[in-house]
């Protein structure tokens, strides 16, 4: 039973949430359709507020548009400019921290009997050839939040030239039927590899496109330069790094997710990028810990909007220093015992994240550098960009979320057998034959060493967008922690797990 003070704070907060929900529901035009609270329907002509708060499982996530309110009439991010009725916002819902959660997807299926454009056959179903009115045909979206990503085979360079892959690919288990489908499969006229992935949040993109250093330590090479801008590609966009800029990302998404095959105008492209690069998402309130933006703590999206991106964790700008104020010894008499305990747990979680070392093994992208295998290091070794937990270098790493034997059993996902050709080096840790649910970065580069590498993603606002990992294999924050504990034999105590979960929930 919460204390009177805690209940008062909660009521105040929820009232604020409702106010912001009402604000976000205000109409820019009188003809805007009715829609369920929270879900943003394309072409609804609403005002996107400067700031909106949405409750999630552990608190409140705040979505900030750093440019003030946006009239979404005609804005291509909110307009169904493709063939299937979707807009960008369809899969980047503000209520879900600009991604989309299984909970929202399930509710949307129930509310529309599967007719919402988000369930479009092209990628919102297990395969377009399946009967689209049956929930079972959309099971990966409804249970794991996964969209079908059809990658060309053989892989192609960003400008469309085929790459000679270092490996062959066979379908061992075609759980969705799509990889052996005569129209959509690997043996079709236009061979494709169908993998299934979560949508990454369209938020905090200043950090996603930032790089800390000119050189990529994973390849030893300087980052490549975008000839259009003269800027270097950061290498952190998309799970498989298949696009290099936000413009390429938008083109890829418009074609593959909105089925918009004609190019958009320069103005529309500018509007999409201008909108999404002003969006910041982070938790701003925790049901147990209270405000994440008060008492000297700098959680929430405003601090993200103000801070410099691409900064490496270090003694002068430490990872998760936003919450350092909670480490003060002086007890605040305004806090309940539960709040104090929660905040202390978060502080312990940060200390563990930054300082507790364990043996990192067999992880291509990390151990395959000259660090050695194993190498002893911390969570922040990889999650090293301050404020987001991304990698300041291109963050393609094989944690084992998709490659066997480390991946969790997933009979509902496709399973591929990749065989590295004799003239090329095998995968550094898995050998010449690799079984994987998703070849990841290797579908972009064609290299054996890249099989199963998935780009490290932004950790902010994570509580608002379960499930987690690129294949939705972690349904809860605890599942994430448990995966790492198993994968690297960390030997976490129950207290340490709780501390790490509490850290994740305030991000």
């Amino acid at each position, binding site marked *: 039973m919460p204390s009177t003070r805690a209940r008062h704070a909660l009521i105040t907060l929820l009232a604020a949430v409702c106010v912001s929900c009402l604000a976000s529901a205000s109409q820019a035009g009188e003809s805007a359709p009715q829609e369920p609270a929270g879900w943003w329907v394309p072409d609804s002509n609403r005002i996107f507020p400067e700031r909106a708060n949405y409750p999630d499982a552990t608190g409140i996530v705040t979505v900030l548009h750093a440019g003030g309110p946006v009239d979404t009439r005609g804005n291509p991010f909110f307009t169904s400019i493709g063939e299937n009725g979707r807009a960008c916002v369809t899969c980047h819902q503000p209520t879900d921290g600009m991604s989309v959660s299984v909970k929202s997807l399930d509710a949307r299926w129930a509310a529309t009997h599967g007719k919402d454009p988000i369930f479009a056959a092209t990628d919102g179903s297990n395969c377009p050839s399946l009967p689209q009115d049956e929930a079972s045909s959309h099971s990966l979206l409804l249970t794991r939040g996964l969209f079908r990503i059809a990658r060309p085979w053989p892989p192609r360079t960003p400008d469309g030239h085929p790459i000679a892959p270092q490996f062959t690919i066979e379908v061992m288990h075609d759980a969705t039927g799509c990889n052996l489908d005569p129209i959509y499969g690997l043996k079709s006229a236009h061979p494709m590899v169908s993998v299934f992935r979560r949508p990454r949040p369209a938020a905090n993109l200043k950090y996603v496109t930032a790089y800390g250093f000119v050189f990529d330590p994973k390849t030893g090479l*300087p980052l490549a330069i975008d000839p259009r801008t003269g800027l270097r590609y950061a290498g952190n966009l998309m799970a498989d790094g298949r696009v290099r800029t936000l413009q390429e990302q938008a083109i890829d998404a418009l074609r593959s997710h909105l089925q918009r095959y004609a190019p958009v105008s320069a103005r529309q492209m500018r509007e999409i990028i201008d909108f999404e690069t002003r969006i910041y998402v982070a938790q701003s309130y925790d049901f147990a810990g209270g405000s994440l933006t008060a008492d000297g703590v700098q959680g929430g999206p405003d601090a993200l909007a103000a801070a410099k991106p691409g900064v490496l964790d270090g003694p002068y700008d430490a990872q998760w220093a936003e919450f350092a104020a909670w480490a003060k010894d002086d007890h605040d008499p305004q806090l309940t015992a539960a709040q104090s305990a929660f905040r202390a747990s978060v502080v312990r979680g940060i200390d563990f994240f930054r300082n507790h070392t364990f043996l990192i093994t067999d992880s291509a992208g990390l151990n395959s550098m000259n660090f*050695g295998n194993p190498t002893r290091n911390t969570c922040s070794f990889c999650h090293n960009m301050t404020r987001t937990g991304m990698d300041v270098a291109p963050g393609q790493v094989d944690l084992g979320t998709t490659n066997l034997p480390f991946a969790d059993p997933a009979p509902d996902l496709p399973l591929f057998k990749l065989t590295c050709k004799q003239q090329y080096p095998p995968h550094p840790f898995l050998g010449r034959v690799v079984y994987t649910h998703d070849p990841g970065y290797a579908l972009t580069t064609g290299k054996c060493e890249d099989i199963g590498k998935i780009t490290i993603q932004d950790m902010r606002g994570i509580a608002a967008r379960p499930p987690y990992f690129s294949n939705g294999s972690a349904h809860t924050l605890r599942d994430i922690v448990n995966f790492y504990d198993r994968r690297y034999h960390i030997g976490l105590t129950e207290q340490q797990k709780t501390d790490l979960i509490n850290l994740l929930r305030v991000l």
Partner: protein
Amino acid sequence: MSLPGKRRARALGRAGLAGLIGLGLGQIALADAGRAFVGCPVYRDTNSGRKSGCWLAIDPSSGIRYDISLGRTKPQIGREVLVEGRLQSASDSSKSPVEHPPCGGVVLTPVVVSVLSSICPVFMLPAEGYTGRRFVLDPKVVLAPADVIEKLPPPPYRARTWWIEFTYGSDFLQYQYSEIILDEIGRYIRASHPRDVEVIGYAVTQPRMISGRQIAESPQVARQRAEMVALALSRLGATPSVLHVTWRDNPAPLTHQAGLAEASRRRVDIRLSY
């Protein structure tokens, strides 16, 4: 015998050097003719903070266990390594106290470790009282963040040659080594606009017998190394019109220091001319 004394004797004894305990370590160093062997790396988990583990490998020709942790490239457990190096000199105790080997092996430094494709048993040791080395980042091998305004070298500019060394059979640009050199070259190129940037890749294809193995690089590695460095330089401002890329076999060593001469032949030379 005191505990440190016991530890030292245990380490040296295990390393097969018990008969040399009466000698000063300086004398051992003076007698060093360099070491090259193929061995199976063993990881000792000393758990003294990040990057603190120890890497050990036994030279099969002597039975001596060496500490190869100070190599720029660390081993991969379960994969054989080619080790080339020298015994730590008595005067160089900065990286490792000579009297108390921190990992339980005879320290090689400098040492070059190359990961081979051949597999070997996976074996890890507990700390067993060894402390390992606390990782200390050498500021000389760290580049400034990307947003720091770069300082270009001032004139006068003159023809210069740099080289980048590689591990056996590899074209990988080693982290916290190669980029320091490449960054310097890139800044020199951007400041001086040379007429010619010549990139010459080398591979050592002459066979050597090491630990009963024939060690020889593929000639293709010379080209791969040259093209890798050329790609890096192109991303640092060298235009295609000035870049000239060639590759050859079996260059002369850059050093004649025991244990390191052969390693210095696996390299790429970069020459700027005006």
